[in-house]
């Protein structure tokens, strides 16, 4: 992941989706995978490449919770805040995790090691509370899990 906007790479990504019906979301996902976010220059670039207005591209990027305008920390921890996790005291667990990293929801630690975000359901509802660290599922979380998470993100 280069993190720096690279128009040649973006052009290549768009080219890969040529001929697809409704290519905008898949392209945005790939751009974010490549650059860590959907940076400002991507908006005009996509508008021109797909022949839609900048407002339309911007509207889509801002509508979906997944798309970031700034890259996240090196690790992304998503903690489930939906009802099934609430029933297993997930909120208290989340509070302890946030306190451990001294963060609020959506925040990134000063050293850039981890961003903690809310997520509303991971489909692990029979093993609550649950979370996802860099795309890997974690469930039946307890105090030990907090240490485990801290170890992972310090790598």
């Amino acid at each position: 992941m280069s993190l720096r906007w690279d128009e040649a790479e973006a052009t290549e990504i768009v080219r890969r989706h040529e001929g697809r019906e409704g290519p905008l979301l898949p392209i945005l996902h790939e751009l974010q995978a490549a650059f860590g976010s959907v940076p400002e220059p991507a908006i005009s670039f996509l508008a021109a490449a797909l022949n839609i207005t900048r407002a339309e591209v911007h509207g889509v990027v801002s509508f979906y919770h997944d798309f970031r305008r700034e890259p996240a920390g090196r690790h992304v921890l998503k903690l489930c805040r939906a009802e099934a996790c609430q029933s297993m005291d997930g909120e208290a667990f989340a509070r302890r995790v946030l306190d451990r990293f001294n963060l609020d929801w959506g925040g990134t630690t000063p050293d850039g090691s981890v961003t903690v975000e809310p997520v509303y359901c991971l489909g692990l509802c029979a093993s609550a509370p649950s979370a996802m660290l860099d795309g890997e599922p974690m469930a039946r979380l307890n105090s030990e899990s907090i240490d485990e998470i801290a170890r992972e993100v310090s790598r």
Partner: protein
Amino acid sequence: MTTRFFVPRDAAARAVGADKVATALQEEAQRRGIEIEIVRTGSRGLFWLEPMVEVETPGGRIAFGPVRPRDVPGLLVVGIPIDANDPLCLGRPDDIPFLKRQTRLTFARCGVVDPLLLADWRAHGGGRGLERARSLGPAKTLEEVTRSGLRGRGGAGFPTGLKWQTVADASADRKYIVCNADEGDSGTYADRMLLEGDPFALIEGMMIAGLAVGATKGFVYIRSEYPDAVRTFEHAVLLAEAGGLLGTGTGFDIEVRVGAGAYVCGEETALLESIEGKRGQVRAKPPLPAHKGLFGQPTVVNNLVSLATVPWILAEGAESYAAFGMGRSRGTMPIQLAGNVRHGGLFETAFGVTLGELVDEIGGGTRTGRPVRAVQVGGPLGAYFPRALFDTAFDYEAFTARDGLIGHGGVVVFDDTVDMAHQARFAMDFCALESCGKCTPCRIGSTRGVETIDKIIRGERSATNLELVEDLCQTMKFGSLCALGGFTSYPVMSAIRHFPEDFDRPPVSAAAE
């Protein structure tokens, strides 16, 4: 002789260490020179027993669980030959009461087969539904689905056959089958389990739908919160294409689309907008998607479970399916027990089981061991039920009659520490967070709802503010285009009605004294 071990690859099993168990098995076997083969299956859905490992024996499979990596050496000893006295030994999976009581039609293969092996799928009855549909032809196939009584498992319970008929009757050169795998309701994971445990069932179901209505292209919209499911299903599509089941020469193509974290995109028209590359805003109906859906073409939008149930119906016949159930709810429902429940997992059963049986007998009460106080059925837009309503039968109409809904079949259990005013507040907050912004009552009303419930929680003029919340719920119910704004009143009003004591609070300052 090589002994086969089965270890789930389901995300919920991986989340509690299934990969580590598989690795430990492999290493331990190697170290001791025992020949084993590890098959990564989906999950049987007995999540309190995950990671649940099964061993093939001459007498069938024997299950062990929950297995930790450090249990593995012992498992290899008892595994061959089986020692039924091992504390982790669960016996034959089908004899475990939680599984034995089920009627697994849609989930028959889930947790049993290797989800990425076409031969395994075929050996377990896969493909027979499509074969029969091909021999019946479109009209008779559609008739089977109609006669089965299958209703949409995504929430609204609309008759699937009727929806298909509308699309079949529409004339257009292009039609689409869209599978809704957005599964945003907390407490639900049935779609995820099938994507990870029996993906070919969905492919087969979509192909049958395509054949019945004259569509040649399908989209599967999977939420981004399910990366494992996306990976497995994409892999399955490639395998199905390579195996000649799907794609070139079969008359049907499937494309996977990944959501981007918007709950409202589970609403069918918002989902279509999203596939088209737009903001996930709900469209006004009419026109119905069946007339003008994806890219303006006639489109079937069905929940994943609805589509994955169709192969069974075609293979076994409409009557066999309709023989299960009660009233107008025919067949089986994969009920998902979740939250604070001892035996959490997927329980597929004929409609008609009561909420009390589900929570107390099958679920075994709470995981914390405290009394059950409330149960939310049907996701964030579903009502909270108190024990007094535990005689409600799992059936679309029975739940409607009690101001609730079964939705996608999620049942979230709460113990007596739950604060129902907080749950009502969350329902409003969730609506505010996920509103697509099109209707004022939904967008603004939900935010006002949060503020007002906050006042109630602080003990400020409870009676007046409760009235205000009720008014807001009414306005949202009747002034919203879709069920996000419209049904938020279910959790809110059910909490107020069934648990009034939680809303009658002393002023915060007084309480502090």
